[in-house]
């Protein structure tokens, strides 16, 4: 073909220059033959040189990724996104990666234990309420921050007062909780009293998110945004933004010394490249492993996450105002089949937002069984067969959301409904729907919730909750009483009662608890991976 094209070009040239066509051809031949001896070796030399340079560079690099690979005291990690300036209380979905650094540098007064319960960490014992508006915190003695500042009441007071500054509250992940904290004062060197706006049952869970900072260092400048200083088992030796980050064991650490003393954290956004880096031996552990890719890695570390993708049904207007329709939708949804979207990993929620590890979880509840026949009967009784129902989903924002919504839509179509899956394409659209009431609210809105204590999310269930499309007087009463109750057992009972009523009222379709997966080399073990997906390196072991 190219020969033919060339022939055409020759003919065109000959037409344009009839008197010189032959000479041109000869000319070309002469240049070609004249240059052959001189240029071809030169071209070959140039290309060869390029290859040689590449090979040399490759040789230089070949040893680099393997340099600290075989030590039992070092770990190399790849995460999917950047760790942005280390505001200790910052955090939305774009900031989640920084917890892989900060959770190892900072500590909190109270922490979530291995079995999901709360345990004192920097507090010497669990804080207790001394009246309905005041909690007393006792701090462990003999602890210092990695820069040598002592951990004392002044540090705790500073950290608590700091979270109520407008600029900190603006993006704080647990803003709703922090707003309850109205004051903190030193009682003695290791005792602090914290006052709350009203009796606040979520106080202890709030303390699990409130990182304690060294007041002298933090108040002097914003240096902590790039060089965080805490009491935790590691110090950040280097790294910011897109990394790489180097964590070293904190020589002043008060607790058991971590066996891994060096952690190198890289940011690799592309999931396939993360897997390749693991397989090439460049890293030992990768975060955000897709369930589909679990066969591609030497070892999978999995835990059931805390997230519960849920369809919030509009109980106040439209087709879903009828409880029979809502129950029918629950019966029509094959939740076990939805797990296949995450390769069978994860769990089916027990008719509630909460995983078993979250405070308020009601172990007596069971998911609505998959029963299309019963769903059809209920829809028929409600006169809803053949009617149209809308599922709104912000697929652009939540990974896997569109697949889940489409799978549920298929279930609902199978029982005789006409289902419209409405893709939300902007945050404004999603937030607008989430805050909407009555007719303006979609029949079913995809809402992923991550809850560690129901206290923080009652706004999704209370009748007058800003983000709620649910309304039930018994649920309101139980939740409100629970919020005011400081006795933990009593509060748990009230929350469980609220969840049971809400389950019967079928205001939500809790679809799945998706898994949190990591890929690892065979030499890595992790006894208790965290459900929230953050990596804490003290619980990991690396064989040499």
């Amino acid at each position: 073909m190219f020969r033919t094209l060339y022939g055409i070009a020759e003919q065109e040239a000959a037409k344009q220059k009839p008197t010189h066509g032959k000479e041109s051809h000869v000319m070309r031949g002469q240049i070609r033959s004249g240059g052959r001896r001189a240029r071809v070796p030169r071209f070959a030399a140039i290309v060869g040189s390029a290859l040689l340079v590449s090979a040399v560079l490759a040789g230089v690099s070949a040893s680099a990724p393997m340099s600290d690979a075989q030590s039992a005291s070092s770990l190399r990690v790849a995460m999917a996104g950047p760790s942005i300036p280390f505001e200790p209380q910052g955090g939305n979905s774009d900031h989640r990666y920084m917890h892989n650094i900060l959770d190892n540098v900072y500590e909190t007064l109270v922490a979530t234990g291995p079995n999901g319960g709360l345990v004192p960490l920097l507090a010497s014992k669990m804080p207790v309420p001394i009246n309905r508006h005041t909690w007393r915190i006792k701090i462990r003695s003999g602890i210092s921050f990695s820069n040598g500042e002592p951990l004392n009441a002044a540090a705790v007071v500073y950290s608590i007062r700091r979270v109520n500054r407008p600029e900190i509250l603006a993006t704080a992940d647990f803003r709703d909780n922090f707003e309850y904290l109205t004051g903190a004062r030193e009682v003695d060197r290791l005792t602090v009293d914290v006052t709350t706006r009203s009796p606040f049952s979520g106080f202890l869970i709030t303390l699990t998110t409130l990182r304690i900072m060294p007041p002298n260092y933090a108040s002097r400048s914003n240096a902590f945004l790039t060089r965080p200083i805490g009491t935790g088992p590691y110090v950040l030796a280097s790294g910011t933004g897109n990394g790489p980050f180097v964590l070293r064991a904190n020589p002043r650490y008060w607790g058991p010394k971590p066996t891994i003393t060096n952690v190198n954290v890289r940011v690799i956004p592309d999931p396939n490249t993360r897997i390749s880096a693991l397989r090439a031996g460049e890293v030992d552990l990768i975060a955000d492993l897709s369930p589909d890719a679990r066969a591609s890695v030497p070892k999978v570390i999995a835990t059931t996450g805390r997230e519960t993708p849920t369809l919030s049904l509009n109980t106040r207007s439209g087709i879903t105002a009828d409880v029979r329709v809502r129950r029918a939708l629950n019966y029509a949804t094959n939740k076990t089949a939805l797990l296949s979207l995450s390769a069978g990993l994860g769990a089916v929620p027990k008719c509630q937002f909460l995983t078993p590890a979250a405070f308020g979880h009601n172990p007596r509840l069971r998911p609505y069984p998959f029963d299309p026949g019963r769903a059809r009967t209920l829809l028929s009784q409600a006169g809803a067969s053949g009617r149209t129902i809308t599922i709104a989903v912000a697929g652009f924002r939540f990974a896997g959301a569109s697949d889940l919504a489409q799978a549920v839509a298929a279930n609902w179509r199978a029982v005789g409904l006409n289902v419209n899956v409405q893709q939300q394409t902007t945050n404004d659209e999603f937030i607008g729907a989430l805050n909407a009431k009555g007719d303006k609210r979609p029949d079913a809105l995809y809402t992923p919730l991550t809850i560690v204590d129901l206290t923080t999310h009652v706004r999704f269930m209370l009748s007058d909750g800003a983000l709620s499309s649910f309304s039930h007087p018994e649920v309101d009463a139980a939740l409100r009483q629970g919020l005011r109750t400081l006795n933990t057992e009593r509060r748990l009972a009230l929350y469980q009662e609220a969840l049971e009523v809400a389950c019967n009222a079928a205001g939500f379709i809790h679809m799945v608890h998706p898994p949190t997966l990591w890929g690892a080399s065979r030499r890595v073990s992790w006894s208790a991976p965290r459900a929230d997906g953050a990596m804490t390196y003290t619980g990991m072991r690396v064989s040499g």
Partner: protein
Amino acid sequence: VGGVTFAYIGGRLLHGLGVVLAVTTVVFFATRFIGDPVRTALPITATEEQAEEYRRILGLDQPLLEQYATYLADVARLDFGESILYAPEPAASLVLDALPATLTLVVSSFALALLLGLPLGAIAALRPGSWIDNVVVTLSLAGLSMPAFWFAQLLILLFALRLGILPTSGSGSVSHIVLPMITLGVPLAGRISQLVRSSMLDELTKLYILAARARGLSSRAIFLRHLMRNVLVAISSFVTFEIARAFVGATLIAEVVFAYPGIGQLAIQAGKANDVVLLSAVVLIASILVVLLNLASDILRGLIDPRVRVAG
């Protein structure tokens, strides 16, 4: 400067300023209408009051024209404000910090592309219809047709996993740039070789070649002084365009796949987080670079080709 007048350079600069101003305006209004950055930055549970408060902190509660006037004044000082995603880091310094990495990638990719594309195109043109011509044309078409993300993954599989001689990703040593450089450079080499081949075939039919031969010039002199000079003029515009394209988009895929910390990766992060401040900074600084690049190209072409030395 080598026959190119200052009036000509001044005119090109003024034209460039106009382009930057137009881009500034488009970027400002586009980023205001692609979605509410406040709602993206805040947790989904934030109330409208909380969103309003954050909007006030960011200055997004002001009337749009007032915001635009402030924005123009700030941009003139290269002050884009604090990135929302990386707050309180200034957006301009984030981009300027990432720029050397992208520049290194672009320069090395083009060096590779020219190193491969020029000789291969020349060889193909000097042996039209031969097996080597067919091989070069086929390879260049293959290079052109491969999607960058797929080609990048193939390179990782071969060099990092199979041969184990290059790192999969990252930065910090020269070896880290090899695979992204090949990902960008090889398809470009394909385009350059095709362009060189067709330009040379055109030039070879022209009378000045015959005249040069008649004057008794050697084949080497004709090739280097006459033929390649004209071919270079033809491909210089193309190379300028491709470099500009690399800055405003082509490096994105390579930077993301290879976790290479340049402005492309920064742009992706800013886009995902709806960080309008950072996004504006990336687009504007890239557009300023493109304008400067075009100016340099115009001057260079003036130096190579006397016909384009236009006063004013």
